[in-house]
């Protein structure tokens, strides 16, 4: 139950990271998006998503199943007997609901500062309400990937890549922010507050204790403590990796890169947090940190404009983490690598296709992007009729 609260606070972490790395003129818009995603995420998951994701034995096929609208308290749902004495139906649901909104939040970061609010909200509703639970069901709901032997402890693929794929597609369909790629050169659009981003990253790390710790589901102290240790070490190693690589490559102590590295380490360990030893976790994190730096550079060169590094963190490191289950730790082996690849591919294909269809339809109908004028003058003034900060200077005399 505590873990639910911790995962909840991750949404604040995402929001702060995101506003810190973007410009002040779009701050309210981003906060608005993130608050609405959380609200919509919880509600759609209540009424549709949970039943889609955990259809239960009676309704499930391998690819798709649906139990019923709303929540239906099972016979022994209120007592821990629901899950062999470990947790109750409602605990389970709420924890999952907090996860669900994460997928859309990831997208939110990548499309920040130029997407239309209404479009984004519609997309999120569909994605969180339908696409994410279906993909999740394939593994966690007992679908075909689960039967195959694909392993994803807490969602490197099922949560992070699901968000990451949608982020890639939307960034590609949206195009870069005005001024990001001027005359073929990559320009710099600085975020407006590094401190806010740092707070965000800390809160995400904090929340990840709940994200991974809670995913043990059984509250078995042995496994949970192992999971927390691997999570933490991988996060630290991710930061270290990003620091080393970005220092060696750019001779620059770039804090935002280290923060991304920490998150990369967290995403990387998520798939196999309960399988790894200390050294495994360290290596997974270190490599994830390095991946971040290269991935951020590569995306820039591919003219995919991702203001907060969401794709690098969640997709690149999500894939890496899922693969790592086959490389390090107690499940390592060629056949597992293959299983992991199939899982990554299947989910990737599904997410790419579905988000392309949704976004393409939206583009043809209500449009994806705000007008050029709105973008330049800031979404806050146009969509919210106010600005995030007023009169920061303090009155005296």
């Amino acid at each position, binding site marked *: 139950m505590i873990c639910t609260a911790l995962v909840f606070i991750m949404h604040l972490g995402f929001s702060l990271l995101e506003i810190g790395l973007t410009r002040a003129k779009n701050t309210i818009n981003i906060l608005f998006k993130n608050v609405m995603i959380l609200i919509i995420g919880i509600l759609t998951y209540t009424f549709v998503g949970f039943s889609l994701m955990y259809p239960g034995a009676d309704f499930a096929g391998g690819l798709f199943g649906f139990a019923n609208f709303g929540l239906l308290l099972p016979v022994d749902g209120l007592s821990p007997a629901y899950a062999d004495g470990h947790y109750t139906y409602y605990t389970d649901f709420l924890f999952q609901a907090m996860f669900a909104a994460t997928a859309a939040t990831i997208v939110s970061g990548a499309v920040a500062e130029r997407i239309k609010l209404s479009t984004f909200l519609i997309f999120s509703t569909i994605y969180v309400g339908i696409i994410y639970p279906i993909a999740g069901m394939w593994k966690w709901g007992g679908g075909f990937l689960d039967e195959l032997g694909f392993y994803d402890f807490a969602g490197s693929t099922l949560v992070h890549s699901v968000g990451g794929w949608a982020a890639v597609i939307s960034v590609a369909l949206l195009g870069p922010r005005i001024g990001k790629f001027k005359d073929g050169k990559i320009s710099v659009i600085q975020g407006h507050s590094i401190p806010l981003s740092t707070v965000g990253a800390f809160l995400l790390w904090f929340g990840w204790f709940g994200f991974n710790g809670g995913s043990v589901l059984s509250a078995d102290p042995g496994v949970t403590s192992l999971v927390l240790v691997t999570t933490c070490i991988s996060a630290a190693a991710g930061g270290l990796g990003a620091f080393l690589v970005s220092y060696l490559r750019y001779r620059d102590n770039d804090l935002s890169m280290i923060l991304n590295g920490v998150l990369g380490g967290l995403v990387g360990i998520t798939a196999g947090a309960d399988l790894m030893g200390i050294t495994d976790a360290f290596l997974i994190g270190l490599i994830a940190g390095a991946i971040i730096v290269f991935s951020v550079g590569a995306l820039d060169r591919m003219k995919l404009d991702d203001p907060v590094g969401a794709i690098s963190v969640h997709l690149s490191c999500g894939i890496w983490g899922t693969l790592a289950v086959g490389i390090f730790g107690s499940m390592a082996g060629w056949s597992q690598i293959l299983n992991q690849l199939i899982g990554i591919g299947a989910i990737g294909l599904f997410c790419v296709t579905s988000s392309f269809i949704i976004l393409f339809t939206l583009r043809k109908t209500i449009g994806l992007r705000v007008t050029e004028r709105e973008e330049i003058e800031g979404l806050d003034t146009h969509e919210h009729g106010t600005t995030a900060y007023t009169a920061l*200077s*303090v*009155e*005296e*005399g």
Partner: protein
Amino acid sequence: MKKIEAIIRKSKFDDVKDALQEINVNFFSYWDVTGVGNEKHGHVYRGVAYSTSEIQRRMLSIVVSDNFLEKTIKVLLETAYTGTVGDGKIFVSTIDEAYRIRTKETGTTSLS
């Protein structure tokens, strides 16, 4: 045309603005500056008492036609006044030419 630069107390800004409005001077630009002058403020910060003459002020830049000059100054002198040290200053200088970007008008008609 004249440019009036008035450096006033921030707490007087609302009054000044309303008074300018009444004489139809409803076009100007302002920003916040730090003023160094006769007024001093005493403060205590973490146990150290100190006094500073750097005080936040508001700078108003108003370009007016010559025949508006006098009454604008008068309004400013009246409404920005409290009588205690630190009420601020008004400086007047000459503007050679003015343009309204929207219409490309020049001269006094471009001011309002």
